[in-house]
């Protein structure tokens, strides 16, 4: 058993002595930073496979009355298919693409957040990067939810009322 060298307690230097805890202007700002994405409502959400045809993918959006579905292959997120994809790559080319797999028209490699990220991170993806839908990944990289502005808005309003 090795012996620790003696250290005079008077010489101890706290490694966090220069650490300043973050200061927040109000409760909303604090909650945006200190709560977790897992505290937000991120469900329900719909996942589809990348080999689903564009026709079937669109029918899924309409049938479920949603504007976006996550595209998942072998349990891993590979894309998003949303109203914007339909506008930009399907609407005027429908007859050419309707029987092709949705992987050809989806948004590939979407930005995501993790369950233990802050709500501010999701806001960053929406406001900073300009994406309306933000998939949520768990620790095993599987999709556990989908955030959109109304769901984040619910969080904001809840904390307005509590502020």
């Amino acid at each position: 058993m090795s012996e620790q060298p003696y250290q005079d307690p008077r010489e101890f230097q706290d490694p966090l002595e220069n650490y300043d805890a973050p200061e927040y202007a109000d409760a909303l700002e604090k909650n945006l930073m200190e709560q977790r994405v897992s505290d937000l409502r991120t469900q329900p959400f719909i996942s589809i496979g990348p080999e689903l045809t564009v026709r079937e993918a669109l029918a899924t959006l309409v049938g479920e009355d949603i504007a976006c579905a996550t595209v998942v292959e072998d349990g891993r997120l590979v894309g998003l298919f949303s109203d914007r994809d339909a506008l930009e790559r399907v609407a005027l080319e429908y007859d050419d693409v309707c029987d092709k797999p949705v992987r050809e028209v989806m948004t590939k490699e979407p930005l995501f957040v993790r369950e233990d990220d802050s709500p501010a991170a999701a806001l960053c993806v929406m406001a900073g990067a300009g994406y309306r839908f933000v998939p949520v990944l768990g620790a095993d990289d599987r999709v556990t939810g989908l955030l959109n502005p109304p769901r984040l808005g619910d969080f904001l309003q809840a904390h307005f009322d509590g502020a």
Partner: protein
Amino acid sequence: MGLQENLLNEPVRQLALREAITTSPDLPLREVIQRMREKGLGCVLVVDAEAKPIGMFTEAMLRHLLVENRAALDHKVGQEMANIFPWVELTDPISTVLDAMQTKRHRFVAVVDADGKVAGLTGQKGVMEYIADHFPQHVLTQRAGAEPPLSEREGA
């Protein structure tokens, strides 16, 4: 002043309004879709001869047409637009936009001036940007992923 007070007191004109795509009701829907693509906007405002909004067509409405009535893509936008749509004035508080977004689940909100003419477009994105601008040092420096983290540690 905190964010909540700002939302209640600051006018809609403080939002970063987007330039709205406006069209007459006679424009064919396919041309409307082309304009939406060019501007990267999911909404078009249909206006009358005085530039006052009389309808709205959105990409959500397009989704339904693609599945349920593709022949409508050959119609004029005036035949497929929504006649009832959310709008606010430049001087209304920003909270009215948030209310339209949360209570009525509208994504786009037309903004009009004192004469009722189109002044811009806002909605979910505008409110999110406004809130992010209040906490830029916190919000806009957040990590967001595009690829899962490495499965094995890098280096020593």
